[in-house]
């Protein structure tokens, strides 16, 4: 591909994602403030954003770190939250013809938002996909840095109740996902089960058990009926991280 053409496609991808920055920045700020009050250093907080680059998984991980959860449970929760990227990969792999070298790069920076933009656009080139992916990567990491510094400026975050940001953020992520009865039922059942389990089980186990159980419940409830919206780009673009 000629250089000018791929530069143009990269730019189009980069700017196609820009409207979603508005959703990413507050989420990144909230994540970094929570990470800081969970006791993570700036390097650790930033490393999660640069290397894992998955908002809701990072956010849940720092919440679990804060209550002293073991590494294995955090990794398994991360897996559970991020395994949906399989669907995006399968969908993108069919639309975009990526070379062997491009695939790991495209995979590393793949997110809900980039998938949504790439799938909804008529584009088929790697530079466009990479432009959209790096657009989010840049903004997510800047927001992480800004959030951590902002958190450092607050003298006593615990007394301000900043740990409330954690449930508030996940409420804000959850509510827009609830459009059908099955989705509402799964949310209510999962919330109730996790609450009960958290009374007796430590750390991340309630989240893991409920995550698997609640998802299986949803899959069973929608058996044969509900149309699959899991891999629809416009839905993915609305979900964060």
């Amino acid at each position, binding site marked *: 591909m000629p250089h000018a053409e791929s530069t143009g496609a990269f730019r189009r991808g980069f700017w196609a994602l820009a409207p979603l920055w508005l*959703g990413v920045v507050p*989420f990144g700020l909230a994540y970094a403030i929570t990470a800081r009050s969970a006791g*993570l250093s700036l390097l*650790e907080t930033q490393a*999660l954003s640069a290397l*894992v680059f998955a908002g*809701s*998984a990072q956010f*849940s*991980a720092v*919440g679990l*770190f804060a209550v002293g959860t073991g*590494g294995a449970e*955090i*990794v398994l929760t*991360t897996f559970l939250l*991020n*395994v*949906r990227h*399989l669907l995006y*990969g*399968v969908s993108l*792999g*069919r639309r975009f013809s990526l070379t062997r070298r491009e*695939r*790991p790069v495209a*995979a*590393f920076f*793949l997110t809900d938002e980039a998938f949504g933009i790439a799938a909804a656009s008529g584009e088929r080139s790697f530079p466009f996909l990479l432009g959209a992916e790096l657009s989010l990567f840049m903004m997510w990491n800047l927001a992480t840095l800004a959030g951590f510094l902002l958190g450092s400026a607050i003298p006593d975050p615990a007394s*301000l*109740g900043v*740990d*409330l*940001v954690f*449930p*508030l953020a*996940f409420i*804000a*992520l*959850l*509510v*827009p*996902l*609830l459009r059908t009865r099955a989705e509402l039922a799964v*949310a209510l059942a*999962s919330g*109730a089960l*996790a*609450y009960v389990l958290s009374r007796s089980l430590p750390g991340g186990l309630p*989240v893991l058990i*409920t*995550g*698997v159980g*609640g*998802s299986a419940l*949803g*899959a069973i409830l929608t*058996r044969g009926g*509900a149309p699959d919206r*899991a891999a629809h780009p416009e839905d993915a673009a609305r979900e964060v991280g």
Partner: protein
Amino acid sequence: MSFWPTLAGMVAVTFGSRYAGLVRRAALPPFWVRFLHFVPIAVFASLVTPSVAGARGEAGIRVAACLVAALAAWRTRQLWVSIAVGMAVFWLLRIPF
């Protein structure tokens, strides 16, 4: 707490999921497509309920703030509005009358 090994594990499972999809050509079985659709819903809900009450004896006003935030999330679908509304309600209710 071992941060860096945990981070390495998180990177491995996240990159693995992203890469496996790109090299896979066949669609997933329908049950697993539906299962994956519900994962964020189940996990997000299970992260919310145990963390609402908090450890500082402010469970009542925290629950109230979360309920108002849920309403704001439903009406506006904006993450930052929901967090801002929730924190504002929490701080207002904290003022001793």
